[in-house]
Protein backbone atom coordinates (compact mmCIF):
# COMPACT_ATOMS: atom_id res chain seq x y z
CA UNK A 1 0.00 0.00 0.00
CA UNK A 2 1.48 3.32 -1.05
CA UNK A 3 1.51 6.19 1.43
CA UNK A 4 2.84 9.68 0.71
CA UNK A 5 4.64 11.78 3.35
CA UNK A 6 1.64 14.10 3.79
CA UNK A 7 -0.75 11.18 4.11
CA UNK A 8 1.58 9.68 6.72
CA UNK A 9 1.50 12.98 8.67
CA UNK A 10 -2.31 12.91 8.67
CA UNK A 11 -2.41 9.26 9.76
CA UNK A 12 0.15 9.91 12.53
CA UNK A 13 -1.92 12.82 13.87
CA UNK A 14 -5.12 10.77 13.75
CA UNK A 15 -3.48 7.79 15.50
CA UNK A 16 -1.91 10.00 18.20
CA UNK A 17 -4.81 12.38 18.83
CA UNK A 18 -7.85 10.28 18.00
CA UNK A 19 -10.97 11.76 16.39
CA UNK A 20 -10.24 15.12 14.75
CA UNK A 21 -11.57 17.32 12.03
CA UNK A 22 -9.56 18.91 9.22
CA UNK A 23 -8.84 22.26 10.81
CA UNK A 24 -7.58 20.59 14.01
CA UNK A 25 -5.20 18.48 11.93
CA UNK A 26 -3.93 21.59 10.10
CA UNK A 27 -3.42 23.49 13.38
CA UNK A 28 -1.59 20.56 15.01
CA UNK A 29 0.68 19.90 12.03
CA UNK A 30 2.98 22.92 12.53
CA UNK A 31 2.38 24.17 9.01
CA UNK A 32 3.03 20.83 7.30
CA UNK A 33 -0.62 20.47 6.22
CA UNK A 34 -2.52 23.06 4.19
CA UNK A 35 -6.15 24.03 4.54
CA UNK A 36 -6.84 23.47 0.85
CA UNK A 37 -5.33 20.02 0.51
CA UNK A 38 -6.07 18.28 3.82
CA UNK A 39 -9.62 17.27 2.89
CA UNK A 40 -8.62 15.94 -0.53
CA UNK A 41 -5.96 13.79 1.17
CA UNK A 42 -8.42 12.66 3.84
CA UNK A 43 -10.83 11.59 1.11
CA UNK A 44 -8.05 9.58 -0.56
CA UNK A 45 -7.20 7.94 2.77
CA UNK A 46 -10.86 7.10 3.32
CA UNK A 47 -11.10 5.53 -0.15
CA UNK A 48 -8.10 3.36 0.74
CA UNK A 49 -9.76 2.34 4.01
CA UNK A 50 -7.14 3.94 6.27
CA UNK A 51 -9.56 6.36 7.93
CA UNK A 52 -13.29 6.57 8.57
CA UNK A 53 -15.40 9.68 8.86
CA UNK A 54 -18.78 10.71 10.22
CA UNK A 55 -20.84 13.88 10.21
CA UNK A 56 -21.18 15.52 13.60
CA UNK A 57 -24.67 16.54 14.68
CA UNK A 58 -24.88 20.35 14.37
CA UNK A 59 -24.50 22.13 17.71
CA UNK A 60 -26.89 24.83 18.85
CA UNK A 61 -25.88 28.20 17.44
CA UNK A 62 -23.28 26.66 15.14
CA UNK A 63 -22.63 28.60 11.94
CA UNK A 64 -22.10 26.94 8.59
CA UNK A 65 -22.38 23.30 7.48
CA UNK A 66 -21.96 20.43 10.01
CA UNK A 67 -18.44 19.19 10.65
CA UNK A 68 -17.01 15.87 9.54
CA UNK A 69 -14.70 14.13 12.00
CA UNK A 70 -12.08 11.60 10.97
CA UNK A 71 -10.59 8.62 12.78
CA UNK A 72 -7.80 6.22 11.82
CA UNK A 73 -8.87 2.61 11.27
CA UNK A 74 -6.91 -0.39 12.60
CA UNK A 75 -5.80 -1.09 9.04
CA UNK A 76 -4.61 2.52 8.70
CA UNK A 77 -2.59 2.28 11.94
CA UNK A 78 -0.94 -0.97 10.77
CA UNK A 79 -0.10 0.55 7.38
CA UNK A 80 1.46 3.52 9.17
CA UNK A 81 3.60 1.18 11.30
CA UNK A 82 4.70 -0.69 8.18
CA UNK A 83 5.47 2.60 6.44
CA UNK A 84 7.61 3.76 9.41
CA UNK A 85 9.47 0.45 9.48
CA UNK A 86 10.07 0.63 5.75
CA UNK A 87 11.45 4.15 6.12
CA UNK A 88 13.73 3.13 9.00
CA UNK A 89 15.09 0.13 7.11
CA UNK A 90 15.57 2.31 4.03
CA UNK A 91 17.47 4.88 6.10
CA UNK A 92 19.65 2.15 7.65
CA UNK A 93 20.45 0.72 4.22
CA UNK A 94 21.30 4.16 2.92
CA UNK A 95 23.49 4.81 5.99
CA UNK A 96 25.29 1.47 5.51
CA UNK A 97 25.96 2.13 1.85
CA UNK A 98 27.49 5.49 2.67
Amino acid at each position, binding site marked *: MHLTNTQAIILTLLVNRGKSYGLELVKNSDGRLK*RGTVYVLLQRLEEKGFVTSELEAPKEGQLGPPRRTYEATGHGARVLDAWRLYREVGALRLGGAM
Partner: protein
Amino acid sequence: MRPRFQAIVDVSHRQKFFTFLLRITPGLQVIDAQESWIFGTNLHYVRLEASSKKRIKKAISWAAAVSWNKRYSYSFGRDAQGRMTITMVGYDFVTDTPKLVRSPGTRIMRLIRFFYGKKSISRIFDPIHADFIEEYFEALEAGEKSKSRWIRVRYYWAFLSASGLLSFVGVAKKVVKFWQQVA
Protein backbone atom coordinates in the same frame (compact mmCIF):
# COMPACT_ATOMS: atom_id res chain seq x y z
CA MET B 1 -24.26 60.58 -27.55
CA ARG B 2 -27.29 60.92 -25.25
CA PRO B 3 -26.92 59.03 -21.95
CA ARG B 4 -29.37 56.15 -21.75
CA PHE B 5 -29.50 55.25 -18.05
CA GLN B 6 -31.20 57.21 -15.32
CA ALA B 7 -30.79 56.57 -11.63
CA ILE B 8 -32.19 58.07 -8.47
CA VAL B 9 -29.60 58.08 -5.72
CA ASP B 10 -30.46 58.54 -2.09
CA VAL B 11 -28.02 61.09 -0.73
CA SER B 12 -29.65 61.72 2.64
CA HIS B 13 -26.43 60.66 4.28
CA ARG B 14 -24.03 63.63 3.86
CA GLN B 15 -26.38 65.21 1.39
CA LYS B 16 -24.39 68.26 0.26
CA PHE B 17 -21.03 66.56 0.15
CA PHE B 18 -22.34 63.52 -1.69
CA THR B 19 -24.27 65.61 -4.20
CA PHE B 20 -21.12 67.64 -4.82
CA LEU B 21 -19.10 64.48 -5.38
CA LEU B 22 -21.68 63.10 -7.80
CA ARG B 23 -21.69 66.43 -9.68
CA ILE B 24 -17.92 66.34 -10.22
CA THR B 25 -17.77 62.60 -11.05
CA PRO B 26 -16.76 62.14 -14.69
CA GLY B 27 -19.29 60.34 -16.89
CA LEU B 28 -22.28 61.33 -14.75
CA GLN B 29 -24.79 64.09 -15.21
CA VAL B 30 -26.85 65.32 -12.25
CA ILE B 31 -30.29 66.35 -13.59
CA ASP B 32 -32.07 67.56 -10.48
CA ALA B 33 -32.39 67.10 -6.73
CA GLN B 34 -35.55 65.95 -5.00
CA GLU B 35 -36.72 65.85 -1.43
CA SER B 36 -39.35 63.72 0.31
CA TRP B 37 -40.64 63.25 3.83
CA ILE B 38 -41.12 59.60 4.80
CA PHE B 39 -41.73 58.26 8.31
CA GLY B 40 -40.58 61.51 9.86
CA THR B 41 -37.31 61.48 7.97
CA ASN B 42 -36.34 63.94 5.33
CA LEU B 43 -34.85 62.04 2.42
CA HIS B 44 -32.82 63.68 -0.32
CA TYR B 45 -32.45 62.21 -3.77
CA VAL B 46 -30.43 63.16 -6.81
CA ARG B 47 -31.46 62.14 -10.32
CA LEU B 48 -28.52 61.10 -12.48
CA GLU B 49 -27.90 60.16 -16.07
CA ALA B 50 -25.04 58.10 -17.45
CA SER B 51 -24.21 56.08 -20.53
CA SER B 52 -24.37 52.72 -18.73
CA LYS B 53 -25.48 51.05 -15.51
CA LYS B 54 -21.89 49.99 -14.94
CA ARG B 55 -20.74 53.60 -15.09
CA ILE B 56 -23.33 54.61 -12.49
CA LYS B 57 -22.22 51.78 -10.19
CA LYS B 58 -18.57 52.72 -10.63
CA ALA B 59 -19.22 56.39 -10.01
CA ILE B 60 -21.18 55.67 -6.83
CA SER B 61 -18.46 53.34 -5.55
CA TRP B 62 -15.90 56.04 -6.24
CA ALA B 63 -17.96 58.77 -4.60
CA ALA B 64 -18.64 56.59 -1.55
CA ALA B 65 -14.97 55.73 -1.24
CA VAL B 66 -13.95 59.40 -1.50
CA SER B 67 -16.50 60.46 1.10
CA TRP B 68 -14.98 57.94 3.57
CA ASN B 69 -18.35 56.21 3.69
CA LYS B 70 -16.80 52.88 2.86
CA ARG B 71 -19.37 50.84 4.75
CA TYR B 72 -22.08 51.11 2.19
CA SER B 73 -24.13 48.98 -0.09
CA TYR B 74 -26.54 49.85 -2.84
CA SER B 75 -29.49 48.12 -4.33
CA PHE B 76 -31.07 48.60 -7.72
CA GLY B 77 -34.81 48.87 -8.21
CA ARG B 78 -37.47 50.70 -10.23
CA ASP B 79 -39.74 53.53 -9.11
CA ALA B 80 -43.43 54.06 -10.00
CA GLN B 81 -42.48 55.60 -13.35
CA GLY B 82 -40.29 52.63 -14.22
CA ARG B 83 -37.04 54.52 -13.72
CA MET B 84 -34.09 52.75 -12.22
CA THR B 85 -33.47 53.61 -8.57
CA ILE B 86 -30.37 53.11 -6.52
CA THR B 87 -30.57 53.16 -2.76
CA MET B 88 -27.43 53.86 -0.83
CA VAL B 89 -27.33 52.32 2.60
CA GLY B 90 -24.68 53.62 4.94
CA TYR B 91 -24.20 52.20 8.43
CA ASP B 92 -25.20 55.45 10.10
CA PHE B 93 -27.88 56.29 7.57
CA VAL B 94 -31.48 56.98 8.64
CA THR B 95 -31.98 54.04 10.99
CA ASP B 96 -29.82 51.69 13.01
CA THR B 97 -31.31 48.65 11.31
CA PRO B 98 -28.53 46.07 11.01
CA LYS B 99 -27.47 45.28 7.51
CA LEU B 100 -27.89 41.71 6.31
CA VAL B 101 -24.48 40.37 5.48
CA ARG B 102 -23.85 37.24 3.46
CA SER B 103 -21.65 34.73 5.28
CA PRO B 104 -18.18 34.44 3.73
CA GLY B 105 -17.67 31.90 0.98
CA THR B 106 -21.35 31.77 -0.07
CA ARG B 107 -20.71 32.89 -3.62
CA ILE B 108 -17.72 30.65 -4.21
CA MET B 109 -19.70 27.69 -2.80
CA ARG B 110 -22.49 28.43 -5.24
CA LEU B 111 -19.93 28.29 -8.07
CA ILE B 112 -18.41 25.07 -6.72
CA ARG B 113 -21.84 23.40 -6.45
CA PHE B 114 -22.25 24.08 -10.15
CA PHE B 115 -19.02 22.30 -11.09
CA TYR B 116 -18.65 19.44 -8.58
CA GLY B 117 -20.73 16.46 -7.49
CA LYS B 118 -22.44 15.94 -4.14
CA LYS B 119 -19.70 13.65 -2.82
CA SER B 120 -16.87 16.12 -3.48
CA ILE B 121 -18.92 18.93 -1.96
CA SER B 122 -19.83 17.08 1.23
CA ARG B 123 -16.35 15.55 1.70
CA ILE B 124 -14.10 18.41 0.60
CA PHE B 125 -15.71 21.78 0.03
CA ASP B 126 -18.32 21.84 2.83
CA PRO B 127 -15.67 21.10 5.49
CA ILE B 128 -13.40 23.83 4.05
CA HIS B 129 -16.38 26.22 4.14
CA ALA B 130 -17.14 25.25 7.76
CA ASP B 131 -13.50 25.91 8.76
CA PHE B 132 -13.61 29.21 6.86
CA ILE B 133 -16.69 30.40 8.76
CA GLU B 134 -15.29 29.27 12.11
CA GLU B 135 -11.93 31.01 11.68
CA TYR B 136 -13.47 34.12 10.10
CA PHE B 137 -15.99 34.74 12.87
CA GLU B 138 -13.42 33.90 15.55
CA ALA B 139 -11.23 36.68 14.18
CA LEU B 140 -14.18 39.09 13.93
CA GLU B 141 -15.27 38.34 17.50
CA ALA B 142 -11.74 39.05 18.68
CA GLY B 143 -11.94 42.39 16.84
CA GLU B 144 -9.12 41.44 14.47
CA LYS B 145 -10.42 42.88 11.21
CA SER B 146 -7.16 42.65 9.30
CA LYS B 147 -6.82 38.99 10.33
CA SER B 148 -10.36 38.29 9.11
CA ARG B 149 -9.44 39.77 5.73
CA TRP B 150 -6.33 37.62 5.60
CA ILE B 151 -8.44 34.55 6.48
CA ARG B 152 -10.74 35.39 3.56
CA VAL B 153 -7.77 35.45 1.15
CA ARG B 154 -6.32 32.28 2.65
CA TYR B 155 -9.57 30.35 2.25
CA TYR B 156 -10.21 31.52 -1.28
CA TRP B 157 -6.77 30.13 -2.01
CA ALA B 158 -7.73 26.94 -0.14
CA PHE B 159 -10.85 26.53 -2.32
CA LEU B 160 -8.72 27.07 -5.41
CA SER B 161 -5.99 24.61 -4.41
CA ALA B 162 -8.56 21.99 -3.34
CA SER B 163 -10.31 22.18 -6.70
CA GLY B 164 -6.93 22.09 -8.49
CA LEU B 165 -5.78 19.05 -6.53
CA LEU B 166 -9.13 17.33 -6.99
CA SER B 167 -8.96 17.81 -10.76
CA PHE B 168 -5.38 16.54 -10.77
CA VAL B 169 -6.34 13.43 -8.76
CA GLY B 170 -9.25 12.79 -11.13
CA VAL B 171 -7.03 12.99 -14.21
CA ALA B 172 -4.32 10.84 -12.57
CA LYS B 173 -6.88 8.14 -11.70
CA LYS B 174 -8.10 8.03 -15.29
CA VAL B 175 -4.52 7.79 -16.61
CA VAL B 176 -3.72 4.91 -14.22
CA LYS B 177 -6.94 3.09 -15.18
CA PHE B 178 -6.17 3.53 -18.87
CA TRP B 179 -2.59 2.33 -18.34
CA GLN B 180 -3.80 -0.78 -16.49
CA GLN B 181 -6.20 -1.59 -19.33
CA VAL B 182 -3.47 -1.18 -21.97
CA ALA B 183 -0.78 -3.13 -20.05
